[in-house]
C-alpha cells in the first residue's frame, strides 16, 4: 500500500516536473498551487476549470470573428486574445501564454493568416494542457484514494 502510494507520488512528481520541463507550466502555476490550502482545497481545480471554460469561450469567439472573412474585427479578436493572455498568464499556462503573445502581435498587424494559424495552435495547446492537467488531477485523486498526500513538487 505504502509502496503503491510512494510510487504514485513519484509518478506524480515526475509528471509535474515534465510539465514544467516541457514548458506547459511556469512558476505561476506553482504560485497557484501554493495558494491552495485547507480553506480552499480545490482552488487550483476551480481556477483551472474556469480557465478552460474561458478558453472554450474565447477560442470560440475568436474563431467566429475570424470566420467573417473580409470583415474580420481584429480589435475584437485582439480583446479576446488579451483576455486569454491574462488568464493563461495567471494560471501559469506558459505555452498558451506564449502563443497569445504572438497571436496578439499578429492581430495588431492584422495578419489574417497568422491569426488563424495561431488560433489553431492555441486551440490545440489548451486542449493538450487540459488533458495533461486532467491526468495530473487523476493522479492526485489516486494518491488521495490510496491514502497518501499529494506531494509538494519543488520544481527548482
Amino acid at each position, binding site marked *: 500500500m505504502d509502496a503503491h502510494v510512494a510510487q504514485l507520488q513519484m509518478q506524480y512528481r515526475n509528471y509535474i516536473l515534465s510539465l514544467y520541463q516541457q514548458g506547459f507550466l511556469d512558476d*505561476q502555476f506553482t*504560485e497557484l498551487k501554493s495558494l*491552495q490550502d485547507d*480553506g480552499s482545497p480545490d482552488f487550483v481545480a476551480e*481556477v483551472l476549470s*474556469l*480557465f478552460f471554460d474561458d478558453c472554450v469561450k474565447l477560442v470560440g469567439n475568436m474563431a467566429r470573428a475570424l470566420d467573417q472573412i473580409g470583415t474580420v474585427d481584429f480589435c475584437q479578436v485582439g480583446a479576446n486574445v488579451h483576455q486569454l*493572455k491574462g488568464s493563461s498568464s495567471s494560471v501559469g499556462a506558459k505555452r498558451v501564454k506564449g502563443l497569445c503573445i504572438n497571436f496578439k502581435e499578429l492581430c495588431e498587424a492584422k495578419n489574417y493568416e497568422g491569426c488563424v494559424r495561431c488560433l489553431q495552435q492555441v486551440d490545440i495547446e489548451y486542449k493538450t494542457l487540459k488533458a495533461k492537467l486532467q491526468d495530473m488531477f487523476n493522479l492526485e485523486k489516486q494518491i488521495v484514494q490510496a491514502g497518501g498526500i499529494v506531494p509538494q513538487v519543488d520544481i527548482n
Partner: protein
Amino acid sequence: MVCEMETDQQMEEMDVEVLSSMWPEDVGGTEPDNQFNVEKPAGDSDTLKEVDIAEKRTMADLKRLPDLLNTTDQGSTQLTNLVKQWEYMQDHAVRLLREELKILTKQREEAEAKELKIIEEHNFETEEPENVRVLDESSDLFRRFKEKKRDKLVGRKRIEIDEEFDTVAYWKQKALTFEKMLEASTERERRLIEKLNESLKTMESHSAPVEELTQNLKRAEGFLHFILQNAPIVMGHQDKDLRYLFIYNKFPTLREHVRDKDILGKTDVEIFHGGGVKESEDFKREVLEKGKASKREITFETDLFGSKTFLIYVEPVYNKAREKIGINYMGMEVTDQVRKREKMAKLREDNAVRKAMESELTKTIHITEETMRAKQMLATMSHEIRSPLSGVVGMAEILSTTKLDKEQRQLLNVMISSGDLVLQLINDILDLSKVESGVMKLEATKFRPREVVKHVLQTAAASLKKELTLEGNIADEVPILVVGDVLRIRQILTNLISNAIKFTHQGKVGIKLKVIPEPSFASDNTHKADAEEQNGLAETSVWICCDVYDTGIGIPENALPCLFKKYMQASADHARKYGGTGLGLAICKQLVELMGGQLTVTSQVNLGSTFTFILPYKVAASNDHSDDQDEFSDMVDHQPEPDDSTEGYFQFKPLLGSIYSNGGPVMGNNFLPHKAMLPSPVKLINGNTGQSESVQVENGGYMDDTRLETGSGHCPESAHQYENGNGRCPSKESESCSSSQASSEMESEFTVSSPREDVQTETEVKETSKQPKILLVEDNKINIMVAKSMMKQLGYTFDIANNGVEAITAINSSSYDLVLMDVCMPVLDGLKATRLIRSYEESGNWDAAVEAGVDIKVLENKQMSVRSTNRLPIIAMTANTLSESSEECYANGMDSFISKPVTLQKLKQCLQQYLH
C-alpha cells in the same frame, strides 16, 4: 557702227533671258550707316577702287584679298558668280540699246517715206544721201525702200527731162523748197549720227565690268550688313599662322580699344588677353591641322569683352592646290544660352542630388527603424531575462534568511550581489533603450528640490558602507516647489551620488543646488522647447544648477571624453576594481539632455570630481498648500516637527565604529523604503533629520531581504531603496513618528519573515490595525480569482470592479486605501480611469469623468471631500509590454505598478508598502 554690229550679233548669239540683279537696287544706298567697309584699296587692287570707305566694323587686308580670291576655290566661285552677274547686266544693256535702235529705225523710215513722198510730188530727182546705206545690210525694209527709190529715180529723171524747159521762176522756187527740205533732212541725219555716237559712248562706258561688279559687291555687302547688323556675330579670316586678314566684329568694345592695324596681321593671342583666348587659338590651330571644320563653345574672360561665351565655327580654307592657307571662323555669342543651359544643368544636378539625398534619407530611416526594432527587442529581451533572474535573486535572498554556515552565507552573498549587478545592468539597458527609442516620456510633477536631494542622500546614506560624509546644500533662491520630472531627476541624482560614493574612499560626497541664469546653449536648444512643453508653458522657468561633488579618486583628463559613452569607464582597470556597467553616466547624460539640460564634469585626479547638470524647471506656485499635502501627505501628516521644506542644508555623517556586518541587527537608521515616484513614506526619518544632524547612517542588516521586491522594479535605484533593514530593531526612534507600533511591527515582519511566518503576521495585522479597504479593478475572472486567493492568504479582503467605470463608481461611493488597477480593460482602461480619479482628487468633482462619458451619480458627501485631499494610492497591474510601460503608468498618475502575473510576493510587498 561696229559696236552696233557687235550688239546685234550678241543679241543673236546669246538668246539668254536677261536677269535682273539679285540685289534690290536701293539697299546699299539707303543704309544710314554702312557698316561694310574695306580698307582703302591699295594700288594693285584697283578692282575695288571705288568701294566706299564706311564705318570700320570690318577690317580686311585688301592686299591679300585678291590673292585669296584668286587662289581659293571659294574665291574662284565668287568671281565666277560676279562675272556671270556682270554678263547678265550686259545683256540687259544690249536689250535696251536694241530697243533704242528700233525706235531710231522707225524714225528714219518715216523720214524716208516723207522724202519719197516729196520726190513723188515734185517728180524731181534728187541726190540720195549716202548715209542711208548704212542700214542696207541689216534691214530688208531699207533694201526694199532703196529699190523703190531707184525705180522712182528713173521715173524722176524722166520727169526732170520732161520739165527741163519750164519757167525759171518756177524752178527757182522749186529749188528753194527742195533746198529747205534737204537742209531739214540733213539736220535730222546729223542728229541721228550724234545720237548714235552718244549710244556708242554709253556702250563704251558700260563695256567695263568693274563698275557693275563694284556695285554688286556694294549691294551684296549692304544686304549682308543689313542682316548682320544686330547679330551677335564675329567673323574673320585668318591665315595659316592665324593672323587676321579680315574681321567683322559687331561688338563695339574691340573697335574702341584696338585700332585696325593692331588687329590685322595679328593673332588672337596678340590681341586679346584673358581666359579662353588660348583655347580658341588652339582650337583654330587644331582645325587647321586636321583640316576638318568643327564647332566649339569657348568662354572668354577678357578685359575687352568681359565674360562671354562664343560658339565658334572654324573651317579650313584651301587654295586650288588643296593646300591649307588659313581658316574662316565665325563666332556667335551664346552667353545667355549657355547661362540658361548651365542653370538647367545645375537644376537637374540639384534634382539628382536631392533625389540621392532622399533615397539616402529613406535608407537612414530604414536603418533607424531597424535600430529601433533592435532596441525594442533588446528591451523585450532584457525584460525576459529580468523575470527569471529576479526569481533567482529572490530565491537566493530567501535562502539567505535560512540557517546557513559562514561559507554558505559568503557564497550566497556573492550570488546575490552578482544577481543584483545583472539586474542593475538590465535595468540600465532598459532605461537606455527607452530613452534612445524615444519611448521614455517625461512627466511634469510638482516637487520640492530640497526633499529630493535629502531623500537621495538618505537613500545613499542608507546603503553606505564607507566612512563618508554626505551633504546637501541648497541655495536659498532655489524655489521651494518646482515642476519637472522628479522621477528622472532623482534617478540622475541617485546615479551620480552612487557613482561618487563608489569612487570616494574618504572625505565627503555632496549635492549642491543653485539657481543660474539661462545658459547660452538653451536659447537655441531644440530640446528646451520639448522640455518646456512637457513642463507646461504657463509658469516661469528657472534654471537650476546641480553639482554632485566628491573627494574621490578623480578622473584623468584623457578619460573625460569617453566618460558619457555607453559601456565605457575611465579605464579597464577601474572597471575591474570598482565594477559597474558603465551605463550609469550615459543614462544620466541622456536623461538630462532629454529634459533640455546639460551634464558636464570637471575633475582632478586624487582630488575629486564634480558632475554638474543644469536643467530648466517651471516654478510652481508654492501657496497651493493642498497640493503640497497631496504630494507629501505622509510626511506632513506624521511629522509634528517644523516643516523642513525650506531647509537648505543636510548632512549625513558616518557613524564611526558601527558594525557593517550583514547578519546582525544593528542600531537602526530609520529610513523606510520609498520609491522615487511615490509619495514617499519616509515618515520615520523626517523628524530626526529635521531637528538634528546626528542621524546615524549605516547599513542595515537586512538589505538583502528587501531586495526581493526589486525584482519587478523598473527604476534602477530601486535596488537601493529598501536596504534599510530597520525591521528587527525595535528601536524607540521609530516611535518618534506617529505611525502605530503595529504597523511598524508589521513592516518588520514583512521585511524579515520567511513565507511561513506570513500567516502569523497577518493575524497580527488583523488584530492590531483596522482592515484596509482595497479595490481591485480587473476584468479577467481568472485573475480576480487568483488575486482573491492571494489576498485571502495575506489576510485582506477587497472589492472588485470590472473596468474603469466601475472603479470610478466604486471610488465615488466608498473610500479606499488602495486601488489595484489593471491597465488594459474594456469600457475604460486603467490609465484613463486613474487620470479621472486624479482629476477628481484635484478638483473635488467628477467633471472630467462625466465629460469622458462616465455616468456618475454625484454624491458629494463630506467624507468624499476630505478624501479628495489625500492621494489615493493606485497601483497598476501591467503585463509589462512596451504598450503598458511603467512610464505610462506614472504619467497617468499611478503610484507604482505590479507586473503580471501577480505573485503573492509582489502583492505582499505592494500592500505592505502602501497600507500602514
